[in-house]
Protein backbone atom coordinates (compact mmCIF):
# COMPACT_ATOMS: atom_id res chain seq x y z
CA UNK A 1 0.00 0.00 0.00
CA UNK A 2 2.80 2.37 1.01
CA UNK A 3 4.73 1.53 -2.14
CA UNK A 4 1.72 2.31 -4.30
CA UNK A 5 1.40 5.67 -2.58
CA UNK A 6 5.06 6.46 -3.28
CA UNK A 7 4.64 5.52 -6.94
CA UNK A 8 1.50 7.61 -7.27
CA UNK A 9 3.23 10.52 -5.57
CA UNK A 10 6.18 10.38 -7.96
CA UNK A 11 3.98 10.18 -11.06
CA UNK A 12 1.91 13.06 -9.72
CA UNK A 13 5.12 15.06 -9.16
CA UNK A 14 6.16 14.46 -12.77
CA UNK A 15 2.77 15.63 -13.99
CA UNK A 16 2.95 18.74 -11.80
CA UNK A 17 6.42 19.50 -13.18
CA UNK A 18 5.07 19.25 -16.72
CA UNK A 19 2.45 21.85 -15.88
CA UNK A 20 4.57 24.29 -13.88
CA UNK A 21 3.92 27.97 -14.64
CA UNK A 22 6.40 29.19 -17.23
CA UNK A 23 8.18 31.79 -15.04
CA UNK A 24 8.77 29.15 -12.37
CA UNK A 25 10.07 26.60 -14.84
CA UNK A 26 12.38 29.21 -16.43
CA UNK A 27 13.63 30.16 -12.97
CA UNK A 28 14.38 26.50 -12.23
CA UNK A 29 16.27 26.14 -15.50
CA UNK A 30 18.25 29.30 -14.86
CA UNK A 31 19.15 28.14 -11.35
CA UNK A 32 20.28 24.75 -12.69
CA UNK A 33 22.44 26.41 -15.35
CA UNK A 34 23.98 28.87 -12.89
CA UNK A 35 24.89 26.10 -10.47
CA UNK A 36 26.30 23.91 -13.22
CA UNK A 37 28.22 26.77 -14.86
CA UNK A 38 31.35 26.63 -12.66
CA UNK A 39 31.63 22.87 -13.18
CA UNK A 40 31.14 23.21 -16.93
CA UNK A 41 33.72 25.97 -17.22
CA UNK A 42 36.16 24.19 -14.90
CA UNK A 43 36.00 20.88 -16.72
CA UNK A 44 36.11 22.53 -20.13
CA UNK A 45 39.19 24.52 -19.12
CA UNK A 46 40.77 21.38 -17.68
CA UNK A 47 40.17 19.48 -20.91
CA UNK A 48 41.55 22.32 -23.01
CA UNK A 49 44.64 22.68 -20.84
CA UNK A 50 45.14 18.91 -20.92
CA UNK A 51 44.89 18.88 -24.70
CA UNK A 52 47.31 21.79 -24.91
CA UNK A 53 49.79 20.11 -22.57
CA UNK A 54 49.58 16.86 -24.54
CA UNK A 55 50.12 18.74 -27.81
CA UNK A 56 53.10 20.59 -26.34
CA UNK A 57 54.68 17.37 -25.13
CA UNK A 58 54.03 15.70 -28.47
CA UNK A 59 55.20 18.52 -30.68
CA UNK A 60 57.18 20.96 -28.55
CA UNK A 61 59.57 22.21 -31.22
CA UNK A 62 56.82 23.08 -33.66
CA UNK A 63 54.97 24.90 -30.86
CA UNK A 64 58.07 26.96 -30.06
CA UNK A 65 58.33 27.98 -33.74
CA UNK A 66 54.63 28.74 -33.76
CA UNK A 67 55.02 30.91 -30.66
CA UNK A 68 57.83 32.87 -32.35
CA UNK A 69 55.70 33.38 -35.43
CA UNK A 70 52.74 34.53 -33.32
CA UNK A 71 54.95 36.98 -31.41
CA UNK A 72 56.05 38.47 -34.71
CA UNK A 73 52.46 38.68 -35.92
CA UNK A 74 51.43 40.27 -32.63
CA UNK A 75 54.08 42.92 -32.98
CA UNK A 76 52.87 43.66 -36.53
CA UNK A 77 49.26 43.73 -35.36
CA UNK A 78 50.13 46.12 -32.55
CA UNK A 79 51.84 48.43 -35.01
CA UNK A 80 48.76 48.31 -37.25
CA UNK A 81 46.52 48.93 -34.24
CA UNK A 82 48.50 52.03 -33.38
CA UNK A 83 48.03 53.26 -36.96
CA UNK A 84 44.32 52.48 -36.76
CA UNK A 85 44.01 54.34 -33.45
CA UNK A 86 45.44 57.42 -35.12
CA UNK A 87 43.03 56.97 -38.05
CA UNK A 88 40.15 56.49 -35.62
CA UNK A 89 40.96 59.76 -33.89
CA UNK A 90 41.21 61.50 -37.21
CA UNK A 91 37.93 59.93 -38.35
CA UNK A 92 36.20 61.02 -35.14
CA UNK A 93 37.41 64.58 -35.55
CA UNK A 94 36.22 64.66 -39.16
CA UNK A 95 32.85 63.20 -38.18
CA UNK A 96 32.48 65.74 -35.46
CA UNK A 97 33.34 68.44 -37.92
CA UNK A 98 30.68 67.14 -40.32
CA UNK A 99 28.11 66.50 -37.57
CA UNK A 100 27.98 62.71 -38.13
CA UNK A 101 27.18 60.30 -35.31
CA UNK A 102 29.06 57.19 -34.23
CA UNK A 103 28.53 54.28 -36.67
CA UNK A 104 28.74 51.25 -34.47
CA UNK A 105 25.96 50.73 -31.98
CA UNK A 106 27.21 47.42 -30.65
CA UNK A 107 29.93 45.89 -28.56
CA UNK A 108 31.21 42.31 -28.59
CA UNK A 109 31.58 40.03 -25.57
CA UNK A 110 33.84 37.02 -26.08
CA UNK A 111 32.47 33.77 -24.60
CA UNK A 112 33.80 30.27 -24.34
CA UNK A 113 31.62 27.40 -25.63
CA UNK A 114 31.22 25.02 -22.68
CA UNK A 115 28.68 22.60 -24.07
CA UNK A 116 27.09 21.70 -27.36
CA UNK A 117 23.76 20.06 -28.17
CA UNK A 118 22.31 20.41 -24.66
CA UNK A 119 21.56 17.15 -22.87
CA UNK A 120 19.31 15.46 -25.39
CA UNK A 121 20.77 16.32 -28.78
CA UNK A 122 17.34 17.28 -30.18
CA UNK A 123 18.32 20.89 -30.83
CA UNK A 124 21.29 22.61 -32.43
CA UNK A 125 22.42 24.66 -29.47
CA UNK A 126 25.50 25.89 -27.63
CA UNK A 127 25.99 26.86 -24.01
CA UNK A 128 28.29 29.80 -23.27
CA UNK A 129 30.16 30.53 -20.07
CA UNK A 130 28.79 34.07 -19.70
CA UNK A 131 25.34 35.40 -18.99
CA UNK A 132 23.39 38.38 -17.71
CA UNK A 133 26.20 39.29 -15.31
CA UNK A 134 28.30 40.09 -18.40
CA UNK A 135 25.62 42.10 -20.16
CA UNK A 136 24.24 39.29 -22.32
CA UNK A 137 20.49 39.31 -22.83
CA UNK A 138 17.88 37.46 -24.80
CA UNK A 139 17.77 37.39 -28.61
CA UNK A 140 21.25 38.76 -29.20
CA UNK A 141 23.27 37.80 -32.26
CA UNK A 142 26.19 35.41 -31.74
CA UNK A 143 29.03 35.65 -34.23
CA UNK A 144 32.56 34.49 -34.97
CA UNK A 145 35.13 36.36 -37.01
CA UNK A 146 33.64 34.74 -40.12
CA UNK A 147 29.96 35.44 -39.60
CA UNK A 148 26.69 34.74 -37.83
CA UNK A 149 26.53 31.62 -35.66
CA UNK A 150 23.15 31.95 -33.92
CA UNK A 151 21.24 33.93 -31.33
CA UNK A 152 20.95 33.77 -27.57
CA UNK A 153 17.89 32.23 -25.89
CA UNK A 154 14.62 33.94 -26.46
CA UNK A 155 13.26 33.74 -22.93
CA UNK A 156 9.90 32.07 -23.14
CA UNK A 157 9.68 29.20 -25.61
CA UNK A 158 7.43 30.11 -28.49
CA UNK A 159 5.36 27.54 -30.37
CA UNK A 160 6.54 24.86 -27.96
CA UNK A 161 10.15 25.42 -29.04
CA UNK A 162 13.20 24.75 -26.91
CA UNK A 163 13.37 26.50 -23.56
CA UNK A 164 16.57 28.47 -24.13
CA UNK A 165 17.68 30.44 -21.12
CA UNK A 166 20.08 33.28 -20.44
CA UNK A 167 20.93 33.03 -16.75
CA UNK A 168 23.38 35.02 -14.65
CA UNK A 169 26.44 32.96 -15.58
CA UNK A 170 25.45 30.98 -18.67
CA UNK A 171 23.65 31.53 -21.96
CA UNK A 172 21.97 29.13 -24.35
CA UNK A 173 22.43 29.81 -28.05
CA UNK A 174 20.26 28.52 -30.89
CA UNK A 175 22.52 27.79 -33.87
CA UNK A 176 21.71 28.97 -37.37
CA UNK A 177 21.55 25.32 -38.50
CA UNK A 178 18.60 24.55 -36.20
CA UNK A 179 15.34 24.34 -38.18
CA UNK A 180 13.79 26.70 -35.62
CA UNK A 181 16.25 29.49 -36.46
CA UNK A 182 15.03 32.12 -38.90
CA UNK A 183 16.67 35.39 -39.84
CA UNK A 184 15.85 38.06 -42.41
CA UNK A 185 18.68 38.39 -44.92
CA UNK A 186 19.62 40.04 -48.16
CA UNK A 187 21.37 38.27 -50.96
CA UNK A 188 23.46 39.04 -53.98
CA UNK A 189 24.48 42.33 -55.47
CA UNK A 190 20.87 43.32 -55.96
CA UNK A 191 20.14 43.13 -52.24
CA UNK A 192 17.15 40.81 -52.64
CA UNK A 193 15.46 40.05 -49.34
CA UNK A 194 14.63 36.61 -48.03
CA UNK A 195 14.42 34.49 -44.91
CA UNK A 196 17.18 32.10 -44.03
CA UNK A 197 16.33 29.09 -41.90
CA UNK A 198 18.43 26.20 -40.66
CA UNK A 199 18.20 22.90 -42.52
CA UNK A 200 19.20 20.80 -39.51
CA UNK A 201 22.41 18.91 -38.95
CA UNK A 202 23.95 16.65 -41.56
CA UNK A 203 24.41 13.11 -40.35
CA UNK A 204 27.18 12.30 -42.77
CA UNK A 205 30.42 14.20 -42.34
CA UNK A 206 34.15 13.90 -42.02
CA UNK A 207 35.26 11.96 -38.94
CA UNK A 208 36.61 15.08 -37.25
CA UNK A 209 33.10 16.43 -37.23
CA UNK A 210 32.17 14.04 -34.44
CA UNK A 211 33.11 16.70 -31.97
CA UNK A 212 30.65 19.19 -33.32
CA UNK A 213 27.71 19.26 -35.65
CA UNK A 214 28.20 19.38 -39.38
CA UNK A 215 27.00 22.66 -40.78
CA UNK A 216 24.52 21.70 -43.43
CA UNK A 217 23.64 24.30 -46.01
CA UNK A 218 20.53 26.14 -45.00
CA UNK A 219 17.71 27.41 -47.12
CA UNK A 220 16.69 30.90 -48.08
CA UNK A 221 13.05 31.31 -49.06
CA UNK A 222 10.84 34.03 -50.51
CA UNK A 223 13.41 35.57 -52.84
CA UNK A 224 11.51 37.30 -55.67
CA UNK A 225 11.27 35.16 -58.79
CA UNK A 226 12.91 37.71 -61.07
CA UNK A 227 16.00 38.01 -58.91
CA UNK A 228 19.38 37.16 -60.35
CA UNK A 229 21.10 34.96 -57.78
CA UNK A 230 24.33 33.17 -58.59
CA UNK A 231 26.33 30.53 -56.79
CA UNK A 232 28.88 32.23 -54.56
CA UNK A 233 26.74 35.31 -53.89
CA UNK A 234 27.19 36.67 -50.40
CA UNK A 235 24.28 36.57 -47.93
CA UNK A 236 24.16 39.07 -45.06
CA UNK A 237 21.59 39.88 -42.41
CA UNK A 238 19.17 42.62 -43.38
CA UNK A 239 18.28 43.71 -39.87
CA UNK A 240 14.59 43.69 -40.80
CA UNK A 241 13.58 41.27 -38.05
CA UNK A 242 14.75 43.76 -35.45
CA UNK A 243 16.64 41.09 -33.47
CA UNK A 244 19.82 40.51 -35.47
CA UNK A 245 21.78 43.61 -36.58
CA UNK A 246 22.16 44.23 -40.29
CA UNK A 247 25.27 43.47 -42.29
CA UNK A 248 26.45 40.33 -40.51
CA UNK A 249 27.81 37.74 -42.97
CA UNK A 250 25.62 34.62 -42.99
CA UNK A 251 26.95 32.57 -45.87
CA UNK A 252 27.31 32.09 -49.59
CA UNK A 253 24.83 30.78 -52.12
CA UNK A 254 25.55 27.21 -53.13
CA UNK A 255 22.70 26.95 -55.61
CA UNK A 256 19.43 28.71 -56.34
CA UNK A 257 16.37 27.06 -57.84
CA UNK A 258 12.74 28.06 -58.44
CA UNK A 259 10.36 26.87 -55.75
CA UNK A 260 7.31 24.71 -56.53
CA UNK A 261 5.01 27.66 -57.14
CA UNK A 262 7.45 29.25 -59.57
CA UNK A 263 6.93 32.62 -57.90
CA UNK A 264 9.97 32.52 -55.68
CA UNK A 265 13.52 31.30 -55.65
CA UNK A 266 14.93 29.00 -53.05
CA UNK A 267 18.66 29.20 -52.37
CA UNK A 268 20.82 26.71 -50.53
CA UNK A 269 23.34 28.63 -48.41
CA UNK A 270 26.74 27.49 -47.22
CA UNK A 271 27.40 29.05 -43.78
CA UNK A 272 30.18 31.64 -43.63
CA UNK A 273 31.21 30.62 -40.11
CA UNK A 274 32.77 27.22 -39.52
CA UNK A 275 30.24 25.72 -37.12
CA UNK A 276 32.16 22.50 -36.73
CA UNK A 277 34.83 23.76 -34.40
CA UNK A 278 33.43 26.49 -32.25
CA UNK A 279 35.55 27.17 -29.17
CA UNK A 280 34.97 30.87 -28.69
CA UNK A 281 32.20 33.10 -30.00
CA UNK A 282 31.20 36.74 -29.62
CA UNK A 283 27.83 37.96 -28.43
CA UNK A 284 26.76 41.19 -30.12
CA UNK A 285 25.39 43.47 -27.42
CA UNK A 286 23.48 46.56 -28.53
CA UNK A 287 24.71 49.73 -26.85
CA UNK A 288 21.82 51.54 -25.21
CA UNK A 289 19.08 50.95 -27.78
CA UNK A 290 17.65 54.46 -27.38
CA UNK A 291 20.99 56.04 -28.25
CA UNK A 292 21.43 53.71 -31.19
CA UNK A 293 17.99 54.65 -32.54
CA UNK A 294 18.79 58.32 -32.21
CA UNK A 295 22.07 57.78 -34.01
CA UNK A 296 20.35 56.03 -36.90
CA UNK A 297 17.69 58.68 -37.11
CA UNK A 298 20.21 61.48 -37.16
CA UNK A 299 22.77 59.86 -39.41
CA UNK A 300 22.61 60.84 -43.07
CA UNK A 301 21.60 58.15 -45.63
CA UNK A 302 24.27 55.50 -46.09
CA UNK A 303 25.85 56.19 -42.71
CA UNK A 304 24.11 53.43 -40.73
CA UNK A 305 26.35 50.91 -39.00
CA UNK A 306 26.56 47.77 -41.08
CA UNK A 307 28.66 45.64 -38.82
CA UNK A 308 29.29 45.78 -35.10
Amino acid at each position, binding site marked *: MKRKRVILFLFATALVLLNLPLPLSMWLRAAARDNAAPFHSGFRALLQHGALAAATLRDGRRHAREADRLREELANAQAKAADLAALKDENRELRQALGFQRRSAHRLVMCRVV*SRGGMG*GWWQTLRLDKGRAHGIGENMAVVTMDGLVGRTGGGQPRDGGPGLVVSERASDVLLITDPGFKVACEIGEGGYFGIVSGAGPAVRGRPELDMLSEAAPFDMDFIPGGAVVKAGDRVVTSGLGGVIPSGLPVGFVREATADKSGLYLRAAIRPAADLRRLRHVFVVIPLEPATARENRAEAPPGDEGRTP
Partner: protein
Amino acid sequence: MTWIAMALLLLAAALAQSLFPPVAWLGHVKWPWLLSVTLYYAMRRERKTLLVAAMAGGLLQDALCHSPLGFSPLLFLAVGWPASACKSLVMTETAPTAAAFGSILTGVFVLVGGLWLHVTGAASVSAAGWLGKALGSALLGAVCTPSICSAAGSLDMLLGNIKRKDDIHGAY
Protein backbone atom coordinates in the same frame (compact mmCIF):
# COMPACT_ATOMS: atom_id res chain seq x y z
CA MET B 1 24.91 6.08 1.86
CA THR B 2 22.77 4.88 -1.04
CA TRP B 3 21.45 8.40 -1.53
CA ILE B 4 24.91 9.96 -1.36
CA ALA B 5 26.18 7.53 -3.97
CA MET B 6 23.14 8.24 -6.12
CA ALA B 7 23.64 12.00 -5.88
CA LEU B 8 27.31 11.67 -6.82
CA LEU B 9 26.50 9.41 -9.76
CA LEU B 10 23.73 11.64 -11.06
CA LEU B 11 25.82 14.80 -10.83
CA ALA B 12 28.80 13.17 -12.53
CA ALA B 13 26.51 11.72 -15.22
CA ALA B 14 24.84 15.10 -15.82
CA LEU B 15 28.20 16.77 -16.19
CA ALA B 16 29.47 14.08 -18.56
CA GLN B 17 26.30 14.16 -20.65
CA SER B 18 26.51 17.90 -20.95
CA LEU B 19 30.22 18.01 -21.78
CA PHE B 20 30.51 15.04 -24.14
CA PRO B 21 29.80 16.38 -27.62
CA PRO B 22 27.04 14.81 -29.73
CA VAL B 23 28.13 12.08 -32.11
CA ALA B 24 27.49 13.45 -35.60
CA TRP B 25 27.57 10.17 -37.52
CA LEU B 26 25.03 8.63 -35.15
CA GLY B 27 22.45 11.34 -35.79
CA HIS B 28 23.91 13.89 -33.35
CA VAL B 29 22.84 11.94 -30.30
CA LYS B 30 24.24 12.65 -26.87
CA TRP B 31 25.75 9.97 -24.63
CA PRO B 32 22.86 8.80 -22.39
CA TRP B 33 24.75 8.82 -19.08
CA LEU B 34 21.81 9.93 -16.92
CA LEU B 35 19.47 7.31 -18.33
CA SER B 36 22.17 4.70 -17.76
CA VAL B 37 22.34 5.64 -14.07
CA THR B 38 18.58 5.20 -13.84
CA LEU B 39 18.84 1.84 -15.57
CA TYR B 40 21.52 0.78 -13.11
CA TYR B 41 19.13 1.43 -10.23
CA ALA B 42 16.35 -0.29 -12.17
CA MET B 43 18.36 -3.44 -12.83
CA ARG B 44 20.36 -3.81 -9.67
CA ARG B 45 18.62 -2.05 -6.81
CA GLU B 46 15.21 -1.95 -5.23
CA ARG B 47 12.29 -0.22 -6.91
CA LYS B 48 12.21 2.68 -4.46
CA THR B 49 15.72 3.75 -5.46
CA LEU B 50 14.76 3.44 -9.13
CA LEU B 51 11.86 5.83 -8.61
CA VAL B 52 14.01 8.41 -6.87
CA ALA B 53 16.83 8.04 -9.42
CA ALA B 54 14.39 8.40 -12.32
CA MET B 55 12.80 11.51 -10.83
CA ALA B 56 16.06 13.18 -9.83
CA GLY B 57 17.93 12.20 -13.00
CA GLY B 58 15.05 13.20 -15.25
CA LEU B 59 14.60 16.52 -13.52
CA LEU B 60 18.33 17.20 -13.78
CA GLN B 61 18.24 16.40 -17.50
CA ASP B 62 15.25 18.66 -18.15
CA ALA B 63 16.62 21.53 -16.07
CA LEU B 64 19.90 21.49 -17.98
CA CYS B 65 18.26 20.81 -21.33
CA HIS B 66 15.63 22.60 -23.39
CA SER B 67 12.86 20.00 -23.08
CA PRO B 68 9.71 20.60 -21.00
CA LEU B 69 10.23 20.06 -17.26
CA GLY B 70 8.82 16.68 -16.24
CA PHE B 71 9.33 15.17 -19.68
CA SER B 72 12.41 13.13 -18.81
CA PRO B 73 11.29 11.96 -15.30
CA LEU B 74 8.18 10.39 -16.82
CA LEU B 75 10.12 8.73 -19.62
CA PHE B 76 12.88 7.56 -17.27
CA LEU B 77 10.20 5.96 -15.10
CA ALA B 78 8.52 4.45 -18.13
CA VAL B 79 11.70 2.77 -19.40
CA GLY B 80 13.12 1.95 -15.96
CA TRP B 81 10.00 0.14 -14.86
CA PRO B 82 10.23 -2.81 -17.32
CA ALA B 83 13.92 -3.22 -16.50
CA SER B 84 13.08 -3.37 -12.81
CA ALA B 85 10.25 -5.83 -13.45
CA CYS B 86 12.47 -8.13 -15.52
CA LYS B 87 15.51 -8.14 -13.28
CA SER B 88 14.62 -11.35 -11.48
CA LEU B 89 14.34 -13.17 -14.83
CA VAL B 90 17.80 -12.36 -16.19
CA MET B 91 21.38 -12.06 -14.93
CA THR B 92 21.44 -8.28 -14.67
CA GLU B 93 24.91 -8.18 -13.13
CA THR B 94 26.57 -9.29 -16.38
CA ALA B 95 27.80 -6.73 -18.90
CA PRO B 96 26.01 -8.22 -21.94
CA THR B 97 22.66 -8.05 -20.14
CA ALA B 98 23.32 -4.46 -19.10
CA ALA B 99 24.30 -3.65 -22.69
CA ALA B 100 21.15 -5.26 -24.08
CA PHE B 101 18.90 -3.48 -21.58
CA GLY B 102 20.72 -0.21 -22.12
CA SER B 103 20.51 -0.48 -25.88
CA ILE B 104 16.83 -1.40 -26.11
CA LEU B 105 15.57 0.98 -23.43
CA THR B 106 17.65 3.93 -24.61
CA GLY B 107 16.34 3.37 -28.14
CA VAL B 108 12.77 3.24 -26.82
CA PHE B 109 13.39 6.38 -24.75
CA VAL B 110 14.53 8.31 -27.83
CA LEU B 111 11.71 6.95 -30.01
CA VAL B 112 9.01 7.91 -27.53
CA GLY B 113 10.72 11.16 -26.52
CA GLY B 114 11.18 12.23 -30.14
CA LEU B 115 7.54 11.50 -30.89
CA TRP B 116 6.46 13.52 -27.85
CA LEU B 117 8.66 16.49 -28.78
CA HIS B 118 7.43 16.35 -32.38
CA VAL B 119 3.75 16.19 -31.40
CA THR B 120 4.09 19.06 -28.92
CA GLY B 121 6.05 21.09 -31.48
CA ALA B 122 9.10 21.39 -29.24
CA ALA B 123 11.48 19.94 -31.84
CA SER B 124 11.23 19.36 -35.56
CA VAL B 125 12.99 16.21 -36.66
CA SER B 126 12.43 14.29 -39.87
CA ALA B 127 11.30 10.67 -39.67
CA ALA B 128 14.70 9.52 -40.94
CA GLY B 129 16.49 11.70 -38.40
CA TRP B 130 14.25 10.42 -35.65
CA LEU B 131 14.93 6.77 -36.48
CA GLY B 132 18.63 7.53 -36.93
CA LYS B 133 18.74 9.12 -33.50
CA ALA B 134 16.96 6.11 -31.97
CA LEU B 135 19.45 3.69 -33.54
CA GLY B 136 22.41 5.86 -32.57
CA SER B 137 21.14 6.16 -29.02
CA ALA B 138 20.66 2.41 -28.84
CA LEU B 139 24.30 1.96 -29.80
CA LEU B 140 25.52 4.50 -27.24
CA GLY B 141 23.20 3.01 -24.61
CA ALA B 142 24.89 -0.34 -25.15
CA VAL B 143 28.20 1.30 -24.26
CA CYS B 144 27.08 3.63 -21.47
CA THR B 145 24.92 1.27 -19.44
CA PRO B 146 27.50 -1.48 -18.76
CA SER B 147 30.11 1.18 -17.98
CA ILE B 148 27.82 2.92 -15.51
CA CYS B 149 26.72 -0.39 -13.99
CA SER B 150 30.32 -1.37 -13.43
CA ALA B 151 31.33 2.01 -11.97
CA ALA B 152 28.19 2.43 -9.87
CA GLY B 153 28.39 -1.16 -8.61
CA SER B 154 31.99 -0.57 -7.52
CA LEU B 155 31.04 2.69 -5.81
CA ASP B 156 28.13 1.06 -4.01
CA MET B 157 30.38 -1.75 -2.84
CA LEU B 158 33.02 0.72 -1.72
CA LEU B 159 30.46 2.62 0.31
CA GLY B 160 28.99 -0.56 1.73
CA ASN B 161 25.61 -0.17 0.07
CA ILE B 162 25.92 -3.65 -1.39
CA LYS B 163 28.15 -6.38 -0.01
CA ARG B 164 29.35 -8.50 -2.89
CA LYS B 165 28.47 -8.89 -6.54
CA ASP B 166 26.54 -12.06 -5.65
CA ASP B 167 24.41 -10.08 -3.22
CA ILE B 168 23.35 -7.43 -5.69
CA HIS B 169 20.02 -9.14 -6.19
CA GLY B 170 19.61 -9.31 -2.45
CA ALA B 171 19.66 -5.58 -2.03
CA TYR B 172 15.90 -5.26 -2.02
